[in-house]
């Protein structure tokens, strides 16, 4: 009985989602037909994301400092990956595939709001969600370790949304 209810709810959520996706694709097609497309449009940076770096093409043999040094950012009290974070992780995956010997520590962080026990758990989930995404993209789980710092290591210490957004992050350290 309850299972059926959940199924109904899931369908209710999924079907509009599918419709939305179809709508998006159509748009993309019309855009592609438009004259003089520069290239694939850069994904709009999510609110709170660091200013998007110039879209440097991923050079697999390039220095690790480039893509791996970029943090990914999360919404408040969430560990789900935003579209911008997913895009960033795809580029990280490309670099990792080209550098299969590299091992990476993924640090999960939280902003100072919320209490520190909960934030340590939240940082743990954030690091895990980034790791799971990279593993889904074919990166060996054994090359990725996670650690949560919760709210203990902020990069920004002012008390405003701009600062908090910078602290809600996963940071990647190539060992």
């Amino acid at each position: 009985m309850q299972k059926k209810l959940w199924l109904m709810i899931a369908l209710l959520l999924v079907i509009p989602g599918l419709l939305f996706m179809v709508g998006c694709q159509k748009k993309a097609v019309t855009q592609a037909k438009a004259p003089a497309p520069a290239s694939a449009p850069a994904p709009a940076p999510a609110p709170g994301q660091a200013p998007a770096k110039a879209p440097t093409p991923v050079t697999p043999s390039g220095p690790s400092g480039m893509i791996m040094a970029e943090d990914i950012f999360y919404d408040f009290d969430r560990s789900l990956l935003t579209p911008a974070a997913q895009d960033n992780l795809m580029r990280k995956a490309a670099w990792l595939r080209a550098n299969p010997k590299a091992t990476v520590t993924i640090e999960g962080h939280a902003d100072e709001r919320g209490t520190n026990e909960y934030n340590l758990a939240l940082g743990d989930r954030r690091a895990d969600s980034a790791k799971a995404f990279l593993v889904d993209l074919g990166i060996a789980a054994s090359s990725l370790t996670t650690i949560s710092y919760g709210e203990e290591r902020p990069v920004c210490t002012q008390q405003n949304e701009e600062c908090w957004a910078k602290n809600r992050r996963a940071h990647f350290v190539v060992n």
Partner: protein
Amino acid sequence: MNRRIKLYIFIIGVILITFGPARCWAEYDVIDITKPFLRKIPLAVPLFKNVSETAEEKQLSETAADFLSDTLEFTGYFKILDRGSFLFDPERSGVTMSTINFQNWTVVGAELLVTGFYEAEGDRISVELRLFDTFKARRVIGKKYTGSKTNQRSIILRFCGDVINYLTGNRGVFGSKIAFVSNGSGNKEIYTCAFDGYDPRRLTNNNAITLFPAWSTDGKWMAFTSYKAGNPDLYIRNLGQGQETKFSKQGINITPAWAPGKFELAATLSFSGDQEIYLLTGAGKIIKRLTNSRGIDVTPSWSPDGKQFAFVSNRSGSAQVYIKDLASGKVRRLTYEGRKNTQPSWSPRGDKIAYTSEVSGGHDIYVIGIDGQDPVQLTYESRDNEAASWSPDGSLIAFSSSRDGPSRIYVMTAYGTDQRRLLVLAGEQTNPKWSTNHLNN
């Protein structure tokens, strides 16, 4: 002003004496612990009568009387009367039953009176302390203590324990300690101090983030989380010998909480890929998993009988406090008001749970019945008021507050009154945890 108050007190005193004080006043043999801070008991502590000759000893007898006043005032039960109003000269008046004129005390409003008789010879001190019920005109406690001058503090504390035991039926908080986290050294480390903030000492020297101190019931063990080996791991330290057991698994190993009266503790571990609460032995072996829900489960706090524990879960979408009953395995949600409620702390009396609620602009401490009824807000100060921890008798709550900027440790009564800063220390202090009451007492 002062004169008017004195006149007022005098008039009240006269009225009371005239209309039968024995009948209506000072009937408490036990403080009503359900609302003890609404009417504080007026207590007089005149300077102790000093029979020693030297100025140094006179000084000691003064500081002893002051310390006794401060200690009893700390409990929140008493209003300490101003010595300036006393019709009493410690050098001339007596301190024993037969020599006390009780009307001199009832007139200034004192319902209880503590007198002291202080004698010093070399390093040895001898202190006689008495508690009188002024309206009944009778001695309630009389004790004589001898020791070295360095024992003065513990002598006074022992007597204060007797006073509180007489009034409440338990010995209060004077043998307890408070552990907390301070970053004064540059890293968060664990410190301990006496119940009143006295003698703060650094316990850990990990040179790494160290968090979540947890006392065992017998006070002999301290569990905590530290990053000293890189990962947030659990450590279980024997406080007497200093030996540590490390518990380390992939992920977080945090928020230890000792099961009451047992060498077992609950803690949050995430090696399974999900943050769940487990039961461990004091030697660091997993006994069993206690929670089972996708999402964050963290911060266990045991009921005093060890049959249930409160914890934080985001299973409903936001962080809220839940209670799990171990025998039935049932979990119920405790908090419904407030966006996010975390850091549950189960009162030693068993009937209430304090917790931290997110409010606009920060956090405040609330207390709720274990039936989930009547959440009461205890702090209203700006910014963050967090991490409530009950005193062992359930009468006081320690917490951290950033009301004045940096986070500091504060203490208030269980009803939110008498909020005051506990101690002055470099850096920021967080995460207070009150021990049980047997240490050094």
